[in-house]
Each structure stands twice: as C-alpha cells, then as structure tokens.
C-alpha cells in the first residue's frame, strides 16, 4: 500500500514500538518517582522500566536498520531523517543551554548580588552579612563545608585532548567510508570508541577524586550543583554516543553502509561532534575560567 514503486516515500504501517516505548518510559518514570517517595517497590519498577525502554529502543532501531538495509528508504526519506536528527541535536543544545544559563546567572548575577553588588547592598548587610562574592562558591551558608575546586589542567585537560582526538579519528573513519576503504573505517571507529571509553573512565576517576579527596559534591552549593549537573549530563551523552558508535561499528563489521548511503553513520557522527563541542564549553566555563 505504501509503496507504489522503487521511488515512493516509505510509510510504515501499524507499528507497536511507540506504544511499547510509552509504557516502558512510564514504568521507568513512575518507578523513579516512587523511589524518590521511598516506596519499596519503586527501585525494582525503575530498573524493569529501564530494561524495557532499552529493549524496545533496540527493537525499534533494529526495525529501522533492517528496513534501511533492504533499500526501503529513498533519498527523500533520507532527507527527512537528516532534518529530524538536526533538530533533535538542536533541542539537545537548548537543554544544555538551560544549565549553562544557570551557571552564568549564578556567576554573573546571583552570587555578586548576595555579596551586595550594585543596588543589592541590603541583601548582603541584612541577610548574608560578611559574605564576599567570589567564584567558585558554595554560598553564604557554606553548604557542604570546606572543599577544593577541580583544576582545569589535570584530568580535564587530558579529557579535552581525548575528545578532540576522537573527533579526528571519527573523521578518518568517515573518509574511509566515503572512499570505500573499510580498514580505516573500522579502525577509526574502534579508536573513537576507545577514546570515548577512556574519557568516561577519566570522568569516573575525577568524580571519585572530587568526592573522596576534594570534598566537592553535588551538595557543595551552587558550584557543586552546576559542576556536577553539567558534567554529569555531558557524561551521560558521551555514554549514549559511545553506545551508538558501538552499534555503528557492529553494523560496519556486518558490511552495512555504502559510500553513497550511510546516514546512520553520519547521524552518530553529528551527535559525537555535538558532544565534543559541549565539552569545549564545559572545559572553558566550568573548569578553566
């Protein structure tokens, strides 16, 4: 019905994946809510929901990959995917923008105001007498107690190098794909994934350092909040990106993708570069300045 010829736009019929995704995601979120409300069954429900979500996501993408490999998608469908991925990444950019906005607001406005800047002298003298504006800070109440900050030129600098290199290796892989040289394609992907995993290992080490030796925690005032939420969501995105790259690697090993048609590869590459760029923002504004 949907296909009148080789060149028609493919309209799938009767898909169960969306409703299964909704049920899974709801299970996950209701479970998490119950966990936060300290209802005993919450934790189990959350993990069941998470497993279901991952399973159905896998199935849904599997369907799309199979359809793609059978040549179901014409150029116009390919372009729809491109627009879809582009705007999805834009929405992710805006999600990070909210947290960067919070960081700038705290650094440029709220912390100086608590310190009595501008016309806010009484805020300081009446409410938080003795507090001097500075950054980083855990606030006038010194939440979480004494802490040390995360310097930029240790692990974070190494991580910057790792991620930037991974962008290069991914581009090498892409050129391999375009020129139909499978060897640089495969090794480029493997290198990118390894660099991503290494990056995450460094992040875990850094978090361990922060909690164990620096007394820098999520509860360390607004510095701790912005530091861990920004780097945490970024780390989550790197993990997702690394998983997506792994899927692409497996597809490459099975002989998927041609020099002409390989949007799956490109979508993941776009995502990886987006994660890379967010990291540069983090490195400059969270760690360095």
């Amino acid at each position, binding site marked *: 019905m949907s*296909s009148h010829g080789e060149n028609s736009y493919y309209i799938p019929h*009767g898909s169960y994946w969306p409703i299964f995704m909704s049920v899974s995601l*709801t299970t996950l979120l209701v479970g998490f*809510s119950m966990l936060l409300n300290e209802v005993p069954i919450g934790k189990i429900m959350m993990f069941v929901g998470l497993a279901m979500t991952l399973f159905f996501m896998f199935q849904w993408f599997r369907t799309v990959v199979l359809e793609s490999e059978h040549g*179901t998608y014409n150029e116009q469908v390919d372009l729809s995917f491109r627009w879809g991925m582009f705007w999805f990444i834009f929405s992710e950019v805006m*999600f990070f923008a*909210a947290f960067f906005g919070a960081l700038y607001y705290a650094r440029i406005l709220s912390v100086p105001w608590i310190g009595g800047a501008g016309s806010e002298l009484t805020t300081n003298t009446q409410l938080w007498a003795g507090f001097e504006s500075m950054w980083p800070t855990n606030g006038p109440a010194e*939440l979480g107690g004494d802490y040390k900050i995360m310097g930029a030129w240790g692990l974070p600098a190494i991580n910057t190098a790792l991620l930037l290199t991974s962008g290069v290796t991914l581009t090498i892989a892409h050129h391999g794909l375009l020129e139909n040289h499978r060897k640089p394609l495969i090794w480029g992907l493997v290198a990118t994934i390894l660099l991503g995993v290494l990056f995450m290992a460094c992040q875990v080490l850094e978090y361990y350092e922060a909690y164990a030796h620096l007394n820098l925690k*999520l509860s360390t005032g607004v510095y701790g909040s912005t530091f861990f939420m920004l780097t945490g969501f970024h780390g989550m995105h790197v993990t997702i990106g690394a998983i997506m790259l792994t899927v692409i690697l497996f597809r490459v090993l099975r002989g998927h993708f041609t020099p002409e048609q390989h949007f799956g590869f490109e979508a993941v590459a776009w995502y990886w570069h987006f994660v890379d760029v967010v990291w540069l923002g983090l490195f400059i504004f969270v760690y360095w300045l």
Partner: protein
Amino acid sequence: MSTTTVDDHHDEHPGFFKRWITTTNHKDIGTLYLLFSLLMFFVGGAMAMVIRAELYVPGLQWVEPGFFNSMTTMHALIMIFGAVMPAFTGLANWLIPMMVGGCDMALPRLNNWSFWILPFAFTMLLSTLFMPGGGPAGGWTLYPPLVLQTGNAFPFVIFSIHLMGISSIMGSINVVATILNMRAPGMTLLKMPLFVWTWLITAYLLIATMPVLAGAVTMLLTDKYFATSFFSAAGGGDPVMFQHIFWFFGHPEVYILILPAFGIVSHIIPTFARKPLFGYSSMVYATASIAFLSFIVWAHHMFTVGMPLVGELFFMFSTMLIAVPTGVKVFNWIATMWRGSMTFETPMLFAVGFVIMFTLGGFSGLMLAIAPADFQYHDTYFVVAHFHYVLVPGAVFAIMAAAYFWLPKWTGHMYNETLGKTHFWLSTLFVNLTFFPMHFVGLAGMPRRIPDYSLQFTEFNTMASIGSFGFGLTQLLFAFIVIQTIRGGKKATDQVWEGAEGLEWTLPSPPPAHTFDVPPVIK
C-alpha cells in the same frame, strides 16, 4: 518492494484497538490528537467550574484552600499542555500534509509516539490529585521555593512535564521535517498556506524552548531530592533564577499557543470574504518577527520580582514592540474583509470573534507591558482577564473555528449550521460575561489564586461565575455537534466552501486514508 520488515504492510483492516494504537497515518493521528484535546478541554474545564463555584460568593464554601490551589494549577497545566497544544498538533497532522501536497508526515512512527506519550503523561499528572499531600498547588509556573513543598506528587508532576516535553519536541521535529521535505514540487516556501507557515515557526519555538523547561524542572527535582542549590540563596543560587529560566520557555510558549491560531484565521477570513488574504508576505514576516521578539521579552512576567532598572526598561520596550507585527496582522485581517462579499457561517463568526476579542486581550497585554503600571496590575485578576482573553476567545475560538471549517472535509458531512451559530453566540456571550468583569476586580486590586475575596468584589465575581457555568455548558453543545457531524448529516462537496482555496479542498470529502501519493502539480 521490500516485505521483510517487521512492521505489517498488508493488514489494511485492523481491529479497533490495533488500528488506533499502532496507526502511522497522519489523518488517524490527527483525529486522536483532536479527540484527546477535546477530552482534556472538558477535564480542565471541570476544574475551572470548581474554581468559579468556590468564587461565586465570598467566604469558603465548597473546597479546601489547598485543593482550590491545586485546581488553579492543574487547570492551567491541563488546558495549556493537554487541550490547546494537542489541538494545534492534531490540526497540523490532519492539514499540513494535505496543504503542502505530501503523502504523510515525514516520520510516521515517531508521529504515533508523539501522540501516544500524552495519555500516559496526563494520567500521571492527574493521578497526583489522589496522592498524599494532594496535587501540585503552587501555580503552573512551579516557582520555588513554594513548589518544593509539594508532597508525594512532586516527582510525578516533574516527570509528566518531561513526557509532555518529549511529545512536543518529537511532534515539532516531525512538523519541521514534513514542511521542509514533503512539499510537492513547485510548492515554494512563499507559496505555502499560512497555517503551514505559522506552524513551521511554532515548531521552531517548541524545539528551542521545551528543552529549557525540561532543564528548569530537572533543577527543581535535584534541588528537592539531591541537595543541589540552584534556587537557594544559602548555596549561592537564587529562586529568581528559576523564574528567568522558566519564562525563557514560558514566553515563547504563549506564542506557541497563538501562532497556529493566527494561521487558522488567515485561512477562514479570506474564504468567507471571498478575497485573497491581504498582505500574505507581510503576514509571514510578522509571524517571524513575533517569534524572534518572543525570545527577548520574558522578564516582563517578573517586573515586580526585581531586576536592575535597565532590565525593567529593556523588557518593557521589547514587549511593547510586539504590538507592531501583531498590529500588522490585525490590519491585514481587517483589510481582507474590507469590501469583501462576506457571509457569516459558523467558522467565520468564530474567526471574526477571534479578531475582535483577541485584540482586546492584546490591548490589556500592552497595558501590562508598561512596567510602572504593571506594579499595580501584577498578580491581580486583571492579568487573569488578559490571558484568558487571548487564550479563550483567542486560541480556543480559533480551534473551534478550525473544527467547523475543516470538519466537513474530514468527515464528509456538513455540521448543523443553526446549532453551530447557537454555539458561537452563546460562547461569545458567556466568555465575555466570565472574563470582562475580571478586568474591573483586577484593577480594583483583587489578587489571583486565592479562594476568598473582599465583599466589594462579590457582584462581579458572581457574574463571572454565572458566565463560566454558561460557557462550560455551551461546550457540551460543541461536543454534541462534533459527534453528530461525524455520524452523519448533509453530504459535503469537495470544495465545501464557495470561496475555499488550497490543496486540501481539491481532495474528496472525506479524503481517502492515503492522499497525494503522487504529488499534485502546483501552478
């Protein structure tokens, strides 16, 4: 062609549940969105009835103050995210592929998912009313620290907002991809019907702002459960920071709720004035200007909260600037009607009602934009009157107009014109009886979101309550007309309206499940 995919291609007559749950057809999904929106319109409306019953006379009579607060909060969340936004998305689903000559939405499975998240999200949200501590009661704007006092409902509210956000973002990505990629050859951007244009810009606003809301509510969640201090001055944060982030989403959001309405009215007025739309390209540029300005006006919601003087001035002037493109639009609608051969079928009545009453709401908005005047108006019923004028006889009237205008196309039947006109006149009478007196009590200082009030406000409040009950009952008539039209009635022609122009009117009424499999030729 390929038959080896997992999804079924051949089952063209699935059972009832299978059809509606697994559908990837833009018309079916459009219908689901519209029916869901109608249901939520009545759920949110019932909450408004509770509010107006309590405010019928001063004193506390029907409900606990806490429950009253959760009614005002939930009424807003349900009407915004459950009634108006899904109605526009439903219209987009039904109309955009037909208007641009595409065979369906660009990403059909994702389209199904965008809809089928909503019933789950709203079940989650509504279930909070039955939880220990009650539903959210701090207002739909979720300001901390008040909202952090919510009981067990809190994480459920936050996650239901996340789900609604996912639905909106996915739906909007689909709309953008459809408009940019599914147009028939020859349908250039500046030939697109205005409903398509306004939705393209709305979708962009949604993709840009819904993730910011997601970020804001995530910070609320971590502030409450994971000891962060984004919105606590003790840790160096600021509760006002939440308001900035929230309204960075919230102000574009109010244009999300009205731009598609502008598009609808720009279809209906030319049809019944039997003249082409006056100033098509200026309409497109005005819509884009409104969208741009919507990103730099947010803090006008916060004049009394406190910000540096330059901030007050900047946000005051940028807000007033919006009156310019909006004025262009109103001018164009009136110029379209000027010397037209006008008839006043129900859709036209709702559209003309929209132009007049939306403009009234725009004027009160202009008053509120003046920072020093806003110091008096802030958090009074004047604000309630303002945004209900732009949302009820504004957005909701446009949706009703769209329903009457395109129902004959969708169902193949004409609705009952007498009942339709009755619906319009009763709605118009009651909507003004409800919201007009709120201007007066607001200017006299009656605060919003309080279940009790001073004796001198009694008469106007009683009037408003009677108006709201009348408006609520009148909408049952709308539901009746819709059901009656779906079930039968006079056969509609393909063009339906004498003056109707556009690709959707070249299709049969009702259109077959799959239309424009072969792209039409655009002149």
